[in-house]
């Protein structure tokens, strides 16, 4: 296929990019002891992007013959050509980059395919059962496993020719507890890039089940907090959510050009000196980040991009088009989810660099506030960096000690105000946003994380 794509590109006029993708996914989902889904999907096709007269055109096909791919290339070129007269600001060129060539295998000692369907099915059934038996108040249990395996070949007319393999499994455990008609949910999830054993390096599936059960049961008795602006210690999961959702999207160069709040802030102090925020293709600090991406979908080798360096905004996230516009190097953030998607500027693994504080010190320094852990359903942010996240688990902190669990907490604020309020950054590090996907018209597997961190946010609660 690599040779075929190369031949087609050699015969093409103008700039073209061909991307072959063969994807296999598996999903096993069990709920209350019943297998709700055991499924596989195979998707294969070629996506073609062409740049003609300063405009991109895109076409995709499932016909993998030379004729089929060439037909798609002509459609893409035609789509670009007929758009040209209506495009106001033409693309002047694409930035040069370190193009990837050669083969990039999945980095694991334990490939997903070495584990048969029966083993994965048995695991999911066993964990679902464990959740259901975990406590008397549990009325609903669920466990699921899914995996995405990709083979991609990316060839561009200006030099990229990469053959990539990728594997991203994930696992979820969910428990619902009930008492007197009142229900509460507890969950835990994990997702990585790599093999089967890599999925459970941080915690075993049994630990995940027990965590979901305990949380669901404890939340049933938990009171609702009052709304207030207060000091909080965020766990790595929430630091990741803040980095990805609230900051990360506002520095995607396409959103910057659409008027995001960061649009004239390069070189400006936007956060506390303690904050260095990055987005990296390769995993940093801990292996197997779920958003791991060694080559992006424009064939550009990825690296670590420092977005905020000790409080100062240093870089946006770029594809080749936006890098040329801003006169910088591409950062390797062009990503497409399926063969039929064109590459967009997307994050990979977004995080805050570890500092020097210990978690105990950070908590001990809070007179009145909260210790917050994990995203609890729904995180949203606007291009003006206003955000709102549900929190999975929130404990009060009183006089430097972690106290009672409260429920129904959301946090909100302006992400840059929150980063300015950071007065302590932990020395630990965890990736903790690997399960699930980020949506921007198409999906992307991403990860995010960091250390524990102390800052000020607005807690949404009851207003009497």
């Amino acid at each position, binding site marked *: 296929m690599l040779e075929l794509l190369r031949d087609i590109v050699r015969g093409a006029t103008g700039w073209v990019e061909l991307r072959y993708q063969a994807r296999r996914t598996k999903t096993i989902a069990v709920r209350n002891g019943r297998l709700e889904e055991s499924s596989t999907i195979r998707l294969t096709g070629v996506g073609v992007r062409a740049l003609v007269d300063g405009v991109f055109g895109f076409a995709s096909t*499932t016909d993998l013959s030379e004729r089929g791919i060439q037909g798609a290339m002509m459609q893409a070129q035609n789509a670009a050509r007929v758009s040209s007269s209506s495009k106001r600001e033409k693309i002047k060129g694409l930035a040069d980059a370190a193009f990837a060539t050669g083969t990039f295998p999945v980095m694991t000692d334990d490939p997903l395919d070495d584990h048969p369907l029966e083993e994965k099915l048995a695991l999911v059934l066993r964990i679902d059962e464990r959740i259901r038996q975990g406590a008397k108040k549990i009325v609903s249990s669920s466990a699921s496993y899914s995996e995405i395996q990709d083979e991609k070949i990316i060839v561009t007319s200006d030099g990229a020719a990469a053959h990539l393999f990728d594997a991203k499994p994930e696992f979820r455990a969910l428990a619902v507890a009930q008492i007197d008609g009142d229900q509460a949910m507890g969950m835990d999830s994990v997702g990585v890039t790599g093999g089967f054993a890599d999925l459970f390096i941080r915690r075993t599936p049994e630990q995940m089940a027990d965590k979901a059960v305990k949380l669901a049961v404890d939340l049933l008795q938990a009171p609702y907090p009052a709304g207030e602006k207060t000091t909080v210690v965020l766990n790595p999961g929430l630091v990741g959510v803040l980095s990805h959702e609230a900051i990360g999207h506002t520095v995607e160069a396409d959103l910057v050009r659409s008027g995001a709040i960061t649009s004239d802030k390069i070189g400006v102090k936007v956060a506390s000196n303690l904050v260095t925020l990055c987005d990296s293709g390769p995993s940093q600090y801990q292996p197997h980040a779920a958003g791991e991406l060694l080559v992006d979908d424009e064939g550009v080798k990825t690296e670590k991009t420092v977005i905020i360096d000790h409080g100062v905004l240093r870089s946006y996230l770029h594809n080749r088009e936006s890098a040329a516009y801003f006169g910088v190097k591409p950062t390797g953030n062009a990503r497409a989810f399926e063969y039929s998607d064109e590459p967009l500027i997307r994050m990979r693994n977004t995080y805050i660099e570890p500092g020097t504080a210990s978690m105990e010190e950070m908590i001990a320094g809070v007179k009145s506030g909260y210790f917050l852990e994990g995203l609890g359903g729904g995180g949203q942010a606007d291009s003006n960096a206003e955000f709102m996240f549900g929190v999975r688990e929130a404990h009060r902190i009183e006089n430097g000690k972690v106290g009672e669990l409260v429920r129904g907490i959301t946090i909100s604020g302006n992400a840059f105000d929150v980063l300015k309020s950071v007065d302590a950054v932990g020395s630990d590090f965890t990736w903790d946003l690997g399960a699930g996907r980020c949506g921007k018209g198409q999906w992307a597997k991403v990860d995010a994380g960091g250390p524990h961190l102390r800052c000020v946010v607005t807690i949404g609660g*009851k207003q009497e």
Partner: protein
Amino acid sequence: MTDKKLVELCQETLESTQQHGANEAEVYGESVRTITVMIEKSDLQISRAQQETTIGVRALVGKRIGFSSTNDLSALDETSRDAVILSKASPADEKNILPTVADIRYVDGIYDPKAESFTIEQAIEYAVQILDLARGIDRRLILGDGMFSVEISERALVNSHGDISHGDVSHGSVLHEKGSLFNYFALATARDGDKVSNMDYQFDASHTVAGIDIEPITRRTCENALGSLGAEKGESFNGTVLLSPNAVQGILAGLILFQTNAKNVLRGMSRWGTQIGEPVAAPILSIVDDGRLPAGLATASFDREGVAHRRFDLIQEGSLIALMHNSYSANAMGKESTGHASGSARSIPGIGPTNFEILAGEATKDELIGDIKQGLLLTRFSGRADPISGDFSGVAKGAYLIKNGKLDRPVTGTLVSGNAFQALKDLSGVSQKRERVFNFTLPYLRLEKISVTAG
């Protein structure tokens, strides 16, 4: 790509699934051709042409079930074999069943033959109209995102449950239907110096070329973005909140759909499962789901399993009437499928709504505002609405403070929180005017006793 017709592909795949050892099987095929023109930063971004045929196979061996799908038409035999292998490895479930499909009546108005010859050039013209209109409204506006697309689709379903030869949609023993849909949306932000508004987006769609009208959604999103420019800190209180149709979708629609989904009743996650016939909302609330709604975006003759769509009461004058079922949940609960099997050829059938409508009320929007002493109008809700506990909490976007029966000023960073179960019971107003939010047709709703916290 093969030149074979979709129905033939489905029939052949059904046969090979049975040959691989399935004693019951269902094959669902979808063929979709799309032209899309994307808008970004107030300019054309990219034009796309896509085509894909997907075949999804459900295989039953005894009462064991497996599902496999592909877009690789040279791998259909492998796909049916995979479905059988998955099925054999699965635990049995006595409730697994494929429906018997009969008496499908053809629904009109979802396919416009003119869509077949619709060109990229025409799609670009509509996208340019959206851009020009926004540009003419105010120079501070940026259309961060937008789209105009046409989707021409064909779907076919065949299952081993005998002969599906009734009605006028079928070809021999398969169900088969064509559709066309023009989708368009605009997402606007306004920027004035250092002030950046909340973003707002609006969407609409039409099955026919004649029904395309980009103007209302473009105007609405631009006005909403401009309106929130210069918003300042709000006030904290516990009281009345007026939700726009978009905010109704964000706060309440998800809960209602979750609670009326029979799958969630079987999962032990829906408290409404035991409340059929009982009041779950104020008597001013009535909700229907109508899979045959004329011009409805989700209108189609049959569901993902081949069961006929129909008009269906979910809530009547505040009382819960019935749950939404597919054939599995219906079989498990001793009911008939209500034609709510949802999903694509890539997934096993789930349960979901078709065209979901909250029926219009009697008050105008101004009347709903008129007797509010202190309140908040929400254009959009950005946050979390837990469909199990009913708790919702999030940021009020495009929000206005209401004082003494009038819109006072735009506010930003304001949090609203409450419980949706309670909010439905305390509902104090439903507007006459409704808007379409995707496949939801929704009025303004007035909620009481909601916590509002100034950020």
